[in-house]
């Protein structure tokens, strides 16, 4: 996928003006956000588990080389073929070679974010394979030629009406006068269409939520059961997983699973959690004959030693974007690449470079909600700040911002002048904003106020208020 990240501002403006998208996004606070809150309330240990989860991930990452070797050893002993890919291109080559050698025609896919990261579908399609996404949300965006706008709810930007229109346009083998009013009717139609694909697929590709070193297993977590049909009905099952997914033991992964569903959808547990170990056994009546695992690095090994290493703890639950005011306002596509929201703002510059993705960390109000909900306690705002610094240091910040920051720095180094200027500015804004409480337009700042309101200040600067509090002046 060609990054559209530099277009964030234009994308965001378009997103704000898109009534369909705004309607689709309006369900987030009462949906995923509220469900997470109640799931958390039902489990008093939730906060304590976050600490344990963070420690499990830190331990696994600190011994990543050894756990990868242990995982490889145990997976191979169970009959898996383990492949290593340093880059997305290498992973694509490995996968397309397996498909070619198998004489495959139809390739079904369970949801996998790293397959999006490496542009796997486009590559396989170029080589003539029919690639079918089977997660309902992924299917919806595949037939529209779109990319996911959320890491766990890829079609969250679509309304039911849009889905109905797409199905009518695409599924022309079905009677034109059929009713498609209820969501259940749309789901049933997709089930029927995709069931045929499952049954005729030669290769099934899934991602992995985790890999277990102890048993050499890969794990997928789904609600629809599509990942299981993908991996059980095709002759060949290929798993693609990034190297950071290895967890030592079943006990370790259990803690992470307790956090994942609750943080993601607010379920107690996802409907299907499947551990796969090797291909089908000689006596098994079903399951794939071949089982391949492609371990992808694509920059993770270098992130591990950097100031961004904590981001590798991510378990891709999506809570940070569900709770992000910017994501809630503009949706996922505005971010322009695979990973949206706060996690995207940290991952994207790491994966595609500061030049292409380095300004995404600016798309944040630094309100801190993402960090407060992240089950892995990743300090997302801090990491975004690191990227802002990197962007500034590399001279990639636009000149207008650089001049503004330089001006501020000049004042900030001269405290008397700073206070004077701040007092004057605040008093002026306060007088102008009296009675309204907020500005929807300001001279010299119309680009900023076009999409947001600036709260009017209350008349005195922070330093004045601080000094008064210190002296005990009642406010």
């Amino acid at each position, binding site marked *: 996928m060609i990054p559209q990240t530099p277009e964030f501002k234009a994308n965001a403006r378009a997103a704000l003006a898109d009534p369909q998208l705004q309607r689709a996004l309006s369900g987030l606070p009462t949906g995923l956000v509220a469900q997470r809150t109640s799931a958390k309330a039902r489990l008093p240990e939730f906060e304590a588990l976050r600490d344990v989860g963070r420690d499990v991930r830190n331990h696994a990452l600190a011994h990543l080389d050894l756990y990868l070797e242990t995982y490889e050893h145990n997976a191979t002993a169970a009959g898996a073929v383990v492949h290593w890919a340093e880059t997305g291109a290498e992973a694509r080559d490995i996968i397309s070679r397996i498909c070619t050698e198998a004489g495959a025609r139809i390739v079904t896919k369970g949801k996998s974010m790293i397959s999006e990261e490496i542009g796997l579908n486009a590559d396989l399609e170029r080589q003539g394979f029919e690639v079918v996404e089977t997660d309902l949300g992924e299917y919806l965006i595949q037939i529209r030629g779109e990319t996911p706008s959320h890491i766990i709810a890829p079609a969250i930007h679509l309304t039911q009406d849009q889905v109905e229109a797409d199905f009518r346009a695409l599924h022309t083998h079905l009677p034109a006068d059929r009713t498609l009013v209820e969501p259940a009717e749309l789901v049933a139609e997709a089930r029927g269409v995709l069931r045929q694909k499952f049954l005729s697929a030669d290769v099934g590709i899934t991602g992995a939520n985790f890999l277990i070193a102890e048993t050499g297993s890969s794990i997928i977590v789904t609600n629809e059961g*599509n990942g299981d049909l993908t991996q059980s009905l095709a002759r060949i099952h290929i798993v693609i997983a990034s190297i950071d997914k290895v967890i030592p033991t079943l006990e370790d992964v259990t803690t992470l699973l307790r956090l994942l569903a609750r943080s993601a959808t607010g379920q107690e547990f996802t409907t299907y959690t499947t551990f796969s170990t090797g291909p089908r056994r000689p006596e098994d009546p079903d399951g794939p004959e071949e089982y391949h695992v492609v371990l992808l690095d694509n920059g993770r*090994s270098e992130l591990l030693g950097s100031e961004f290493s904590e981001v590798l703890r991510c378990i891709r639950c999506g809570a940070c974007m569900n709770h992000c005011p910017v994501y809630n306002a503009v949706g996922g596509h505005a971010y322009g690449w695979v990973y949206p929201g706060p996690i995207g703002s940290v991952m994207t510059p790491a994966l595609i470079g500061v030049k292409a993705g380095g300004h995404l960390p600016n798309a944040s109000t630094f309100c801190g909600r993402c960090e407060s909900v992240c089950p892995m306690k990743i300090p997302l705002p801090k990491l975004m700040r690191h990227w802002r610094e990197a962007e500034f240091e590399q001279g990639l910040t636009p000149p207008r911002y650089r001049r503004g920051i330089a001006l501020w720095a000049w004042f900030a180094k001269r405290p008397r002048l700073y206070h004077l200027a701040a007092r004057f500015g605040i008093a002026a804004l306060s007088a102008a904003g009296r009675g309204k409480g907020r500005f929807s337009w300001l001279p010299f700042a119309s680009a900023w106020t076009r999409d947001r309101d600036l709260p009017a200040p209350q008349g005195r600067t922070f330093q004045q208020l601080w000094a008064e509090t210190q002296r005990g002046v009642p406010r």
Partner: protein
Amino acid sequence: MSPIDKPADRDGAREAILGKVRKSLGIDGQSGARDAVVERRIERPVRHLTPARVLKPKADLEALFAATLAAQFSTVLPVAEFSDVPGAVATYLRQTNLSGRLGIGSDPLLEALAWNGEPGITLVPGRAAADTEVGVSRAIAGAAETGTLFLASGPENPVTLTFMPATHIVVITSDDIVGPYEDAFNVVRKLYGPGLMPRTLNLVSGPSRTADIGGKIVIGAHGPQRLAVVIVKSTAPAAT
């Protein structure tokens, strides 16, 4: 063991990745101490925090298991004896107007039951086919923590029966109901050996579902639309 030759990946990708990982971690050369830490962790897995909701007497766990499953859109069918299973299944299928052709594996406990005593029931042994409407499996364990069934694939329990039919019926004895997932994993370890697993271990907590159409929850996505769980109370299965 694998039937296929491993295609030649780019030479040295493995070494390059592991090398970069070690460099990032600031490790050069072998360190016996790190190896020992990892070995111990794998050989003697540590249990972390167990939710208090499962620190309860067995009878309460059984009640929690059934209640949680029911809350997750599943039908719970309690029976007193193993020999009551065919009757309960037949009644359920009749009441819900479903086919009596049951896809079923070679699980010895299920196979030994007197299914032919139930009019309308026929068994179709082996894996699920495209037209299998009802699948019957036996769970090796159930975790009360979230009403989660543990199903191990194999000839006794073909994995396709869990996902292809529109209706899935799972039989579990109350003996096999435990509290936390960790206890269920220990059942797996006991059956397969430490560090070993069936081809697939499926943790199932309800019928399939999706919220991908306009964010509304629909029960019945690609997997089963209905999940019925027969819980056998008796500790002594009639059929062994």
